């Protein structure tokens, strides 16, 4: 059954459907619909909802419930996510599965409350201390928000790793028809490591402290091995028209929606625009980008930031073709016309006539 929901509400309900029964949050715009929804919904399913005293307390409550074997979630927006970084590092270091939703807003500092993608580095490169990775999923529609939040709990449990949903104000507050197509989760993976009371077994200890020389290096080797497995098996992306494309755009989330518009417009001309939309930002879909870069004339990365994901695109491309960037910051959202103009600016001169013929198609809108 189709419903009309905001991305924030869809994320909340998808968590419930995935069996999340522990939600801890703190109000911050633009993710308030999520915490508000949970306040009503959690008691209906016998779950726990706490409005914590801070973002820090909320994520540490998640830490506790995850350690105790529950499916737990918190959500916030950029400044609040910064506060959570300490515990995120501890969660990674203690290998605790949980889901953290970041509905990004403009920064740095208090910034503003409009959509932004400027937390990419923080999410993907590790905003906290130490060598660790989150699995980072980037929805670009309300439907995908629901689907990815549901999957996030399974991914977290499968790899004993925190998962971040990296949305933005646009995806969080947009209303779209969507449906919960997956069955409510009732059976969960066994967690024999969890804190349940040591009745009839050896005790379990959840910790990230390894003071004896050599142990921490050994533990890090274990983490790196796990991250390699995740890199090999969990990459997700959407590729549109990349075969025979004159230029390929790389964008995620809200930026990718706008890029899709450009791809659609280019159908009506002989200038072919393709799109690679990373769905997992970590692990990053580097292989498809690398392969594509060997066939295409140039790449344009589009982001609502001053240029963050573009660094990973360049690392994947390894200089095989030029990688250009177009970004808007501080709550600015790129338009399809801006993107077309940027394409016209960066394409090799032999393609410029083709591009100029499709520019009017975009400008009509």
């Amino acid at each position, binding site marked *: 059954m189709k419903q009309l929901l905001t991305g924030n509400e869809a994320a909340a309900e998808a968590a419930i459907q995935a069996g999340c029964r*522990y939600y*801890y949050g703190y109000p911050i715009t633009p993710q308030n619909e999520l915490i508000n929804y949970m306040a009503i919904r959690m008691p209906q399913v016998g779950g*726990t909802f*706490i409005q*914590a*005293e*801070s973002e*820090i*307390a*909320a994520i*540490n*409550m*998640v*830490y*506790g*419930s*995850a*350690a*105790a*074997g*529950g499916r*737990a979630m918190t959500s916030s927006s950029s400044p609040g996510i910064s506060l959570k970084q*300490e*515990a995120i590092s*501890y969660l990674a270091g*203690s290998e605790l599965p949980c889901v953290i939703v970041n509905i990004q807003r403009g920064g740095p500092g208090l910034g503003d409350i409009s959509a932004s993608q400027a937390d990419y580095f923080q999410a993907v490169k590790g905003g906290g201390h130490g060598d660790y990775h989150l699995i980072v999923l980037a929805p670009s529609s309300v439907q995908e928000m629901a689907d990815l939040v549901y999957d996030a709990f399974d991914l977290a449990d499968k790899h004993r790793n925190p998962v971040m949903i990296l949305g933005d104000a646009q995806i969080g507050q947009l209303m779209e028809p969507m449906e919960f197509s997956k069955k409510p989760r009732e059976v969960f993976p066994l967690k024999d490591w969890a*804190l*349940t*009371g*040591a*009745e*009839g077994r050896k*005790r*379990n*200890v*959840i*910790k*990230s*402290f390894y*003071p004896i020389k050599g142990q921490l290096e050994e533990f890090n080797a274990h983490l790196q091995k796990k991250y390699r497995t995740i890199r090999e098996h969990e990459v997700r992306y959407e590729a549109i028209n990349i075969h025979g494309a004159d230029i390929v755009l790389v964008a995620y989330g809200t930026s990718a929606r706008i890029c899709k518009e450009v791809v659609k417009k280019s159908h009506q001309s002989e200038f072919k625009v393709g799109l690679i939309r990373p769905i997992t930002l970590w692990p990053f879909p580097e292989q498809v980008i690398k392969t594509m870069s060997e066939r295409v004339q140039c790449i344009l990365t589009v982001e609502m930031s001053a240029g963050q994901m573009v660094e990973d695109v360049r690392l994947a491309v390894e200089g095989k073709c030029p990688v250009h960037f177009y970004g808007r910051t501080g709550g600015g959202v790129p338009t399809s016309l801006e993107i077309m103009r940027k394409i016209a600016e960066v394409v090799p001169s032999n393609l410029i006539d083709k591009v100029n013929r499709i520019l009017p198609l975009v400008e009509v809108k």
Partner: protein
Amino acid sequence: MQSLYKKPKTLIDTPTHFCPGCGHGIVLRLIAEIIDAWNIRGRTIGLAPVGCAVLAYNYLDIDMCEAAHGRPPAVATGIKRVHPDHMVFAYQGDGDLAAIGTAEIIHAANRGENITFIFVNNAVYGMTNGQMAPTTLLGQKTITTPSGREPLNYGHPIRICELLAVLDGSSYLERVSISSPENIRKTKKALEKGFKTQREKKGFSLIEILSPCPIYWRMDANESMRYIDEEMTRTFPLGVVKDWEHKN
């Protein structure tokens, strides 16, 4: 032959990392004795702080969880919500509970979380070699108060029990010490009362234990115990501060 004194089963037989004369060993032993006597090893979950007692999980043979510095009250909240019928306790030092984790302890108390907090107050940061704690006495010399703590620059010692007593959510608050066998017995009674508060679902309990740190007080063990009795208790008077069974 009746055995009068032996190592509690819940206390792991291993050398400790604590300094000579430290009070943590006494407190951990008391916890182990109660877990044995109440036969609750399989239904108890403990939290270790960051600070001297971080390795508490090396000594207690129960399910245990580490928490970031100051965050045990929030982590314990998350655990207790998953296992509401288990005994959940957090073991915290003065830096953990009364400095970096002040917000977390106040709000756990304010929510009336049905958890027992064991607050070991030795008025100094031992783990990081002897800096001022929020509970350092006025005039007390530490590495970061080399001329003694004076209130103008360093503020006053924080009385946590009295601070939490004004919150409607707190149920049982008592300050004890481990300066003598008699006081150790009283400490055990207070810990039992804390666990009883939780078992009967009466809400938030905190036992503040004045404990010696001979190394960073630069005293011997006997002097340290005298210091607790003669100096510390003047700022931190012993006794019940709040009790749900005896409301005034």
